[in-house]
């Protein structure tokens, strides 16, 4: 197996290979570090590379596995973190000049859990500033590029996580999601992300954007890999006031039970038909996906999208108010340290009143009930993850455009629902039901390549890229790439189904 083939293994495959002694954690880590060195000057995924630490951890994992001490599927697996997860002794910047040299003195609960299971930390990944700005134009670190087309945005705010996974620079990552920050980059980069139920994963040690909307969650190249990471990081944490003391199911063990009989609700009318950003191609592809799900035994029901549309508005109001409250002192004292994009978005919160905020929270409760009422008729909701394919990078993306990009994800952030997101198709279900939603998203047998190998991300050169047999023809441009569904070829964007 070539070095670059090593880099595109799934976590499941890499873990199995480690136990078969086909390669070692040091070899996996070395291959990734080499690839990062050769590609990241084009992609800008990493803010801080922890190469020495990674190699040290890899050697330790190698010794432990050799001696029979097996800590589970992440043992010896190199991962990387969105740079808002606090890491003791390693700087945590939030992609901002405000925290450019900040070194926390403790480690986030989720990261500590990953360390305990033997995962290897490659470094800290770039993001939208404080998870709220747009692509960086005036932050101390450059904007992350989309490996599929470096002229395009990778989505955000977990941009570095999405891009690094698509480019084969890590096997798994932790992102965070307040209004779509796991789901949008997962879609734009053709990988998989899960926004779990609020309270499922600890936020302790994750720099807040909006306390009542923030979620920590996994990103990877396959649903199963996401399940492995989620299994590791989920669970009650007394250090997080919002953490729920709820039983954690066996996510991975539930995979593959079929979609037959699943009732899928599509909140089309009044929601994504009213968001002008949903383009025709996206909707066509989405409709084709629904047809396929029906063929596999699911039933599709149109449901009222109005509550979702209103929920998006409540999300925006709550988000700006809480973000401003968290950063108020810094915005008063050193506003120049914030990038112009994030500063403007946060400052909106200074001009909304306490009554405005409470109104949004009251509406949130009402809308939550209205949306949940649908679960008597359907098991999951489905929409496109993003209303359109990744757009070209530009120096300044207006706030209104950012809100449009997240227009299909914000509503779910504010009603606490989990949202497993298989690369372009956004599935949401009721609280704590991530298990069954993931099961459903897994079952349609691999719609496409398990990793973006059918067409190389453009930040990579032929000799550096994985040369696995493409699952589909390479002759289609990225936005028309074919995907194989049960042996049949259909055309779909790479962000749609590329990872199922």
């Amino acid at each position, binding site marked *: 197996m070539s070095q670059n083939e090593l880099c595109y293994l799934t976590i499941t495959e890499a873990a199995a290979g480690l136990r078969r002694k086909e390669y070692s954690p040091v070899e996996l880590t070395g291959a990734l570090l080499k690839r990062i060195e050769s590609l990241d000057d084009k992609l800008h995924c990493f803010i801080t590379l922890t190469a020495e630490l990674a190699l040290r951890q890899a050697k330790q994992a190698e010794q432990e596995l050799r001696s029979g001490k097996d800590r589970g599927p992440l043992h010896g697996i190199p991962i990387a973190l969105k740079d808002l997860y606090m890491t003791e002794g390693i700087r945590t910047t939030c992609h901002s000049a405000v925290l450019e040299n900040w070194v926390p003195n403790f480690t986030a609960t989720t990261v500590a859990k990953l360390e305990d299971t033997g995962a290897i930390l490659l470094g800290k990944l770039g993001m939208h500033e404080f998870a709220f700005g747009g692509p960086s134009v005036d932050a101390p670190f450059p904007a992350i590029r989309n490996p599929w087309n470096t002229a395009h945005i990778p989505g955000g705010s977990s941009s570095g996580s999405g891009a690094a996974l698509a480019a084969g620079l890590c096997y798994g990552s932790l992102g965070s999601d307040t209004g779509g920050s796991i789901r949008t980059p997962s879609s734009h980069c053709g990988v998989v992300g899960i926004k779990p139920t609020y309270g499922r994963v600890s936020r302790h040690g994750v720099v807040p954007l909006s306390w009542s909307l923030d979620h920590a969650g996994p990103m990877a190249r396959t649903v199963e890999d996401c399940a492995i990471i989620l299994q590791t990081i989920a669970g009650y944490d007394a250090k997080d006031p919002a953490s729920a003391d709820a039983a954690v199911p066996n996510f991975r063990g539930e995979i593959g039970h079929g979609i037959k009989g699943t009732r899928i609700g599509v909140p089309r009318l009044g929601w994504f038909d009213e968001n002008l950003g949903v383009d025709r191609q996206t909707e066509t592809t989405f409709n084709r996906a629904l047809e396929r799900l029906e063929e596999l035994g699911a039933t599709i029901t149109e449901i009222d999208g109005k509550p979702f549309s209103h929920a998006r508005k409540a999300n925006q109001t709550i988000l700006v108010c809480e973000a401003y409250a968290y950063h108020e002192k810094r*915005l008063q004292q050193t506003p120049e340290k914030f990038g112009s994009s994030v500063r403007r978005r946060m400052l*909106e919160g200074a001009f909304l009143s306490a009554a405005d905020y409470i*109104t*949004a*929270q009251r509406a949130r409760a009402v809308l939550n009930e209205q949306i949940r009422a649908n679960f008597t008729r359907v098991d999951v909701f489905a929409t496109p993850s993003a209303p359109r394919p990744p757009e070209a990078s530009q120096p300044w993306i207006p706030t*209104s455009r950012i809100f449009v990009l997240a227009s299909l994800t914000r509503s779910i952030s504010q009603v*606490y629902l989990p949202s497993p997101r298989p690369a372009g198709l956004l599935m949401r279900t009721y609280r704590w039901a991530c298990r069954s939603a993931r099961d459903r998203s897994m079952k349609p047998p691999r719609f496409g390549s398990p990793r973006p190998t059918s067409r190389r991300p453009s930040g990579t050169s032929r000799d550096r890229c994985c040369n696995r047999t493409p699952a589909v023809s390479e002759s289609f441009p990225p936005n028309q790439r074919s995907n194989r569904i049960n042996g049949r070829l259909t055309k779909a964007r790479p962000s749609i189904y590329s990872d199922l």
Partner: protein
Amino acid sequence: MEREITLDNLRTMAQLAGLKLADEELQRLLAGVTRSKKQVAELRALIATESEPAATFNAADGK
């Protein structure tokens, strides 16, 4: 009917909030604040007198 926010309103609110913002920046903020206020007005129409804020949410209350 909500009263429209003006640049003067923003300037005063910024001063009260301890924010040093140039008129140019306030001008850029005006559209966003106006949109946000409009959204809040829409949300206000959805809630009944007895509606309580979601802040009382208990993450462990099941589905």
